[in-house]
């Protein structure tokens, strides 16, 4: 039975075909003969059984595939092996030409471990400087990096693999880096009184509707939004500090519905 191949765990469970990887024992037992709670597992019936649950996939499946002529035929011979898509390979492919990489919180859309590893690498590079905190201008990057920071805790299942990938570059990340976005920096580090002191022309009469977007206020526990850090009010304060007037609307904490696909 080929391991790690989609469908390779196909078996007959109480006479019904199913995937062993996501079949729940309780449900399978209920589907058994009346009241018996017996689960009978047999090899798939459409392929010759080799032994126990192992069936000869090549005899049926691959034989059929080989009969098909592909629409596109590569003129060059097939490479000896496919490209290495591991996080370590992705790290090697990243240019290490700058102390801090471009401000981009890596997304988890494709591969969570890769995203966490690349973000941990950014943290590790930042920790090589004498900076006290990491500043993000983009709340998406900030949110992704906060998430990666949580994922890099020693209890995370992917943390050791990420650490090993970073080690191949001579890097290590100690989860202690303070990660803030620009809004927090204005309020918590610079302080609004300092901003107000520099106001030359107050924004008097300017009515501004705050729109936080989803990433800068969610998840609240991960972003440590609490009574001591009412970060879900900072944009209101930043509008008011130079003399502007806040105009609240229904969508103040909504997502902007950024269209990522066409």
């Amino acid at each position: 039975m080929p391991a790690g191949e989609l469908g390779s765990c196909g078996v007959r469970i109480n006479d019904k075909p199913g995937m062993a990887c996501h079949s729940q024992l309780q449900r399978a037992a209920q589907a058994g003969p009346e009241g018996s709670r017996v689960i009978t597992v047999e090899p798939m019936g459409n392929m010759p059984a080799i032994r126990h649950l192992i069936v000869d996939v090549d005899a049926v499946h691959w034989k059929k595939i080989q009969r098909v002529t592909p629409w596109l035929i590569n003129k060059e011979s097939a490479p000896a092996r496919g490209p290495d898509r591991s996080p370590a390979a992705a790290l090697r492919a990243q240019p290490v030409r700058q102390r801090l990489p471009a401000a981009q919180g890596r997304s988890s859309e494709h591969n969570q471990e890769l995203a966490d590893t690349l973000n941990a690498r950014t943290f590790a590079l930042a920790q090589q400087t004498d900076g006290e905190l990491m500043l993000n201008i983009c709340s998406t990057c900030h949110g992704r990096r906060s998430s990666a920071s949580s994922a890099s805790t020693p209890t995370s299942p992917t943390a050791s693999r990420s650490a090993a990938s970073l080690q191949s570059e001579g890097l290590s990340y100690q989860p202690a880096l303070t990660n803030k976005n620009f809004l927090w920096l204005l309020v918590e580090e610079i302080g609004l009184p300092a901003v107000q002191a520099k106001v030359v022309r107050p924004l008097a009469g300017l009515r501004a509707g705050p729109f936080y977007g989803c990433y800068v206020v969610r998840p609240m526990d991960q972003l440590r939004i609490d009574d001591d850090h009412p970060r879900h009010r900072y944009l209101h304060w930043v509008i008011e500090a130079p003399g502007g007037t806040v105009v609240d609307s229904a969508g103040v904490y909504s997502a902007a519905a950024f269209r990522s696909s066409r």
Partner: protein
Amino acid sequence: MSKEASLRQASRHLGDVLDAGADCLVTPRPLCHLNLDLQQPLAAKVVSRQLGLSGAVPSPAPRLALRLDPEQLGMSKHVVRPASVIDWSTAVVAARA
């Protein structure tokens, strides 16, 4: 998310802020800004409503009050011209009349 659903949602948020009587919308997130500014003409078309609401990321708001040049802040690059926020003839912050 489909294009139309995205545009409808953007137009709802922009419409809510406009209906509340705001001159502009301020967001800390560049992607929200991109969507609510860049896509605004399309969003207006989908819901057949004139929007024209200027958006800004938060850094320009205090910076304008510090009398920094709106041009340097990149506010001339917005799709929806921030005419309600900036008097471009003198390039200083203008309050609503």
